[in-house]
């Protein structure tokens, strides 16, 4: 086993264990912090796949932005003083059935498909210049639409979350 494989399995275990804690933990605070390690594990896998730009973006957007938002959500919607952080589960049996079917399908497709990939792991010199070039040429319209989406989401989130003013 070379170092690359060991690193892959390390990050894979970090991601899977953290993801399981996110979903199966009874305490919502543990879930939120396990999500942090799941994001870190995925960022490590991006580094292994030589996607440097995406790895840094993952850290900045998910760990820096989305996770902080989720923690705010947890703190604002849980009665921290009354310590009611435990959360239950519903519909366990149908969920297990659906998930088993989905898992079987996904894993079966992934293992049996003859992927037309490069014979050797090609990798990239650096990805940021190529991504930037694509963003400003072939993908210019989606790029602009993404910025509009972000603006609308910002305004919408502020409008939905703010307290209604009393009509006086």
């Amino acid at each position, binding site marked *: 086993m070379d170092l690359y494989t060991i690193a892959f399995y390390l990050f894979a275990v970090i991601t899977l264990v953290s993801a399981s804690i996110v979903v199966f933990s009874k305490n919502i605070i543990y879930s939120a912090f396990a999500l942090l390690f799941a994001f870190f594990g995925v960022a490590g896998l991006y580094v292994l796949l030589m996607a440097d730009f995406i790895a840094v973006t993952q850290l900045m957007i998910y760990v820096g932005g989305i996770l902080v938002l989720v923690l705010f959500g947890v703190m604002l919607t849980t009665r921290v003083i009354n310590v009611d952080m435990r959360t239950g589960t519903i519909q366990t049996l149908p969920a297990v059935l659906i998930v088993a079917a989905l898992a079987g399908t996904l894993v079966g497709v992934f293992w049996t498909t003859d992927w037309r990939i490069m014979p050797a792991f090609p990798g990239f010199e650096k990805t940021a210049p190529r*991504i930037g070039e694509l963003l400003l040429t072939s993908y210019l319209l989606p790029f602009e639409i993404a910025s509009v989406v972000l603006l609308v989401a910002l305004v919408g989130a502020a409008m939905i979350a703010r307290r209604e003013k009393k009509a006086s």
Partner: protein
Amino acid sequence: MELQPYLLLSAITFVIGVVGVLSRRNAIIVFMSIELMLNSVNLSLVAFSAFLGDVTGQMLVFFAMTVAAAEAAIGLAIIISMFRNKQTVNIDDINILKW
């Protein structure tokens, strides 16, 4: 390194996220599970991109992250205003749209 381990890891993470969406009662945990699923799909896209030698996959991941950030902001705003009105974030207590 083969492509299959990455895809398998992505599939397992996705399935763990589906378990969370289907079986948890707390809306925020459902929300975190959705983030997990988005991450697993991103992982498979990056894996395909690396093994095909084409950065277009990473491009799609970039847009998926944009949408995920927008979704995080809107989703948490909805959850917070829901909590303000009903004093709960349990998804089976929020059924006023149910006929």
